């Protein structure tokens, strides 16, 4: 996918460019707000990564200006501030996601890849997710695998729903915490892992082909291993 990185720290931008290219993406870089704004307006980017503090035009102003021009490119804000209200300000300004520095690249990659998926504008939302022989019906809250119904707790259902919504993509622990529990902090203990292993016990244990896999150092992914 085509990614625009607007970041004034040239070292960081070069590192991100290299890392995203290795992950198979096409990357353009702008080192100041005005250039970044012009490049983003020209369009064609599936995701823009915007640093909060930029020369010439700061990140939040840039996002506001883009949204004012009806440019709906998904934007992830990078910020060195990292305060709780800073995140709120970023999202209010029109950002789609927010990541505080310092971050793990795996986290950034996972978030950028799930952001891009939001794209198909106007497409009706799927009501049934399918991964291999696992089916999740969002309306009836029914989960079946190979035709057998699997009974899940409400929170487990939301966990699986979020994983399947991003099937084939890495979902990090903090992303799960954000979308399933609506919290953005970093829990001291690896509480998410316990939840995932419980879910895994329900959907994978009695079946030979595991769908829910752990991506070392990054998070989790659900995908049809047979394909």
């Amino acid at each position, binding site marked *: 996918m085509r990614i625009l990185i607007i970041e004034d720290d040239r070292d960081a931008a070069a590192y991100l460019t290299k890392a995203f290219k290795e992950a198979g993406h096409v990357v353009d870089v702008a080192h100041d707000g005005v250039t970044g704004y012009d490049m983003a307006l020209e369009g064609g980017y599936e995701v823009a990564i915007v640093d909060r503090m930029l020369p010439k035009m700061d990140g939040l102003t840039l996002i506001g200006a883009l949204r004012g021009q009806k440019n709906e490119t998904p934007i992830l804000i990078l910020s060195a501030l990292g305060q*709780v*209200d800073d995140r709120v300000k970023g999202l209010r300004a029109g950002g789609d996601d927010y990541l505080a520095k310092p971050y793990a690249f795996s986290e950034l990659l996972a978030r950028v890849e799930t952001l891009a998926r939001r794209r198909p504008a106007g497409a009706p939302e799927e009501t049934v997710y399918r991964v291999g022989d696992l089916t999740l019906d969002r309306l009836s809250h029914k989960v079946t695998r190979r035709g057998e119904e699997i009974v899940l707790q409400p929170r487990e259902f939301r966990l699986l729903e979020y994983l399947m919504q991003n099937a084939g993509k890495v979902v990090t622990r903090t992303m799960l915490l954000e979308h399933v529990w*609506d919290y*953005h902090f970093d829990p*001291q203990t690896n509480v998410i892992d316990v939840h995932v292993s419980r879910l895994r016990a329900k959907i994978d244990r009695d079946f030979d082909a595991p769908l829910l896999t752990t991506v070392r*150092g990054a998070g989790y992914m659900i995908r049809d291993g047979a394909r």
Partner: protein
Amino acid sequence: MTALAKLFRATAFRLALAILAVSSVGAGVVLAIIAWQVVAVVDEEIARTIDAEAKGLTDAFNHDGLVGLYSSIEARKRQPGASLYLLTDPAGESLAGNVEQIPLEVLERQGFIVVNYRTNGPGDRVRQALVRIYKLPPGFLLLVGHDLGDRARIEGVMVRALAVSLVFFAALAALGALFVARNVLKRIDDINTSAQGVMAGDLTGRLPVSGSGDELDRLAESLNAMLKRIGVLMQGLREVSDNIAHDLRTPLTRLRNHAEAALAYGDDPAAYRAALEKTIEESDALIKIFNALLLIARAEAGGGIDGQTAFDLAEAARAVADLYEPIAEEEGVDLAVDIDAPLTVRGNRELIGQTIANLVDNALKYGAMSGRHPGDPKPSIVVSARRVGDAVELVVADRGPGVPPEDRKRVLDRFVRLEGSRSRPGSGLGLSLAAAVARMHGGRVELADNAPGLRVRVILPAEHAPPALPAPVSGSVHEPVAG
């Protein structure tokens, strides 16, 4: 004598001069007004006398003509304390009287006038008199006047009074300056000396308080309170830097050691990989500590936070309990939420949720799991909340070993971990983070005995309640505490 002491002396001197100047001008003005009034009265009296005498003489002239007038003048001028008389013919030649040498032009003027004159008696010297000229037919001029010696005497008295009072005021000013120098300036001098001691680095120094309760005492007391507060903050800062040195240095050293060891002994990609993974893990832990420190620092800097909304505390607590429930179950701990929904509070759901998570995490780590013996009842953690007046009280209670009363205030400080718990994972920031978040919301954290176990009470303002809360009781952290 220090330069400062010299300045004080100079201040006292200037003060004395000012007192002297103000009181002298005041006395001068008062005396001048009195003199003016007295002189006016005297003048009036003299004028009345002159008019009366002139009337007597004119009567004599009218009855007995010039001869009558002449004899009257001759008779009157011999009496003691006599008035002044002069009778001239139309040519201006003196006919009778006791006045010599009077300027001729005076005779042409009307009304009362002050003139210099010379008597024709012995000891003739120039004197001042108030006179009036009366015209008598056919062209005679009669001058009647009275000496102004009384008036001059009164003026002399006033001048002497002014001189005496000036001396008196000078003495008074000197005394006042001495008093100010001795009492006020001396004390300011003392305060200054003490303040300089503090500036030189002795934060334990205090300003002298005389005990009189006056303005200077109140100032010294306020400054002393400020010094105490600064001292507390400084001590806190020192403790924090010591703790940071310990808690950041340890993982930093570990991190460095791993990298070094990998460089020195790692000879296959797997070993490098493991070392790098370890490095990332350690730096993540460092970032967590760092973020928590920033948040606490921000809470201590005061001021609220953006992103405050009204939200259901019951839901927020349940989400956290839900998050920790599987871990608690694995550890064999009952984790229960006892909140009547909805319980609306105003604040940052994120921070309050994180606080609950920290407290539950703490309860799991230090409370429920430690000090257990086989056969003990199943450990439990209860998260409850209820509304108490204008506040909402959130309680996380466990059945662990608890915290001794003397340590309850201290464990809310940064990095404090009680003896025996340092070896367990955790940054030691959980409770102080909770305290910081509570403070950001205008609330506080209190620790109490759960008999057995620990009860952590987070007190937050309820929605629409004013942010002020009743005064904290024991073990609270309304104020940043540091030792």
